[in-house]
């Protein structure tokens, strides 16, 4: 949403308020099967994995799956109360049938305008290998959580997170770049969801950088970097010193051992071209 000014107000200095458009990054909680008795226990478990990230987080409820079946009624009010108990604050809904949206509005949850078309198929796998773990390590930055189907546990988490192929391009542009200004320590995972990742420090061995977009490291890259994990083959990885344990773009990877001596510890650009991973010196 761009800045919108109400023409009627004009530049009125005496107005006690200002109406403006705002653009926000919000977490979306997709209600795949809210009747499942494991819904709240599993959600609570997820929240516990990164309590700081989820504490008092505003959440938009995605109703597409709710409206798909025979359901005609959903108790939004008590559902919202249970979310608040987990310190997740529902602030609106997206998707779903007009009836569901009206019921939500009655409970104080308005329809939040989005730019995308409603989904009609489940998320397809984009064959990411090796499957990156979801960002539930010490840091859980910019994670767009969707409530997974309870029976989904066997699937690699990469599948649950990958947006559909045709939406991959749209998914990239939606989020602003994630900037990390401190060294990324061993064991930390940073996931730039639907955007690029820029690190202005070194990345230790044992650390993992994941992005749907490109990854830029202004320092030594000693850990793992996986760009374009949503399937974007145009994503690239840039670093000032390539010492990575593994680099990958859209699932195609190369390990440290297979990196050419000529580019090791040099400023390098990694990109995919004609199905082959290129590691080119930058200067």
């Amino acid at each position, binding site marked *: 949403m761009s800045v919108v000014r109400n023409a009627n107000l004009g530049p009125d200095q005496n107005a006690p308020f200002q109406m403006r458009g705002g653009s926000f990054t919000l977490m979306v909680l997709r209600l795949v099967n809210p009747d499942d008795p494991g819904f709240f226990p599993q959600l609570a478990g997820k929240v516990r994995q990164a309590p700081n990230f989820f504490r008092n987080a505003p959440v938009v409820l995605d109703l597409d799956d709710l409206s798909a079946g025979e359901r005609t009624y959903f108790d939004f009010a008590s559902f919202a109360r249970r979310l608040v108990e987990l310190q997740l604050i529902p602030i609106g809904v997206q998707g779903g049938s007009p009836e569901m949206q009206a019921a939500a509005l009655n409970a104080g949850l308005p329809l939040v305008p989005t730019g995308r078309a409603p989904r009609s198929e489940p998320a397809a796998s984009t064959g990411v290998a090796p499957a990156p773990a979801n960002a539930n390590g010490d840091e859980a930055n910019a994670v767009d959580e969707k409530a997974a189907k309870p029976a989904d546990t066997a699937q690699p988490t990469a599948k649950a997170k990958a947006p559909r192929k045709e939406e991959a391009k749209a998914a990239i542009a939606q989020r602003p770049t994630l900037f990390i200004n401190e060294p990324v320590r061993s*064991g*930390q995972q940073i996931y730039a969801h639907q955007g690029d990742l820029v690190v202005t420090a*070194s990345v230790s061995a044992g650390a993992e950088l994941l992005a749907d977009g490109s990854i830029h490291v202004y320092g030594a890259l000693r850990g793992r970097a996986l760009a374009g994990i949503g399937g974007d083959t145009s994503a690239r990885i840039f670093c000032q010193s390539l010492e990575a344990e593994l680099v990958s773009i859209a699932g195609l990877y190369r390990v440290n051992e297979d990196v050419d001596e000529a580019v090791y510890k040099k400023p390098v650009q990694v990109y995919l071209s004609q199905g082959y991973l290129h590691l080119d010196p930058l200067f």
Partner: protein
Amino acid sequence: MGTIITVTSGKGGVGKTTTSAAFSTALALRGFKTCVIDFDVGLRNLDLIMGCERRVVFDFINVINGEARLHQALIKDKRVDNLFILPTSQTRDKDALTREGVEKVLEELRKEFDYIVCDSPAGIEKGSLMALYFADHAVVVTNPEVSSVRDSDRILGMLASRSRRAELRMEPVIQHLLLTRYDPERVERGEMLKVDDVLEILAIPLLGVIPESQAVLRASNVGMPVTLDEKSNAGLAYLDACARFLGEEVEHRFTKAEKKGLFGRLLRRSA
């Protein structure tokens, strides 16, 4: 209000307990009222290194459980004024530590002591997390060796995200690197990482370099913190590190191999 210094590392056997004992002794010798606490429940060593294992009646866990008062468990050091030890239990394990219990004990100690040194166990599980949670300062003990450096890096990540200061978005824990068991001759031969190599990876301020020293084993055998061995290079290095911690500018010693004369080589003098 006392300052909490946690001595941690990730890797085991790098010199945390040696450092906790030596550093707290150095602070006490400077006149600061210092308490050193053993957080390694079930594998307690601090009382041995401090030489008070024969005077332990009550311990940290007893205090947490309300079975004893703090002053019944604190042991006064016989050699150095202002120095107190809070030993831990040998019969229980880390599950006996609770955050509320630890917080309560530390708050009580903060009122009385200038410095509280927490000797962390190895690892990244409950015991070590509990030891680093309340830290104001962290001394990350590292050997100049690849696995120790990797583990220290991991611990630095945890200090940045799992400490109370990180969770409450306060000023971050102040981190210090202490390089221990440094052998300049092996460094020159290329067998051991240099100070600069370690600093490049860990990128935190260097508090001190403690040389490999036979005095450390001798000191622990007799239950004496190595700082009290005036003839040992390790002891002197710990005193230097303490001075730097308190803000003094002290040049790093014992980081270059000594050029031994003929007699030196013949006699194989040890520090």
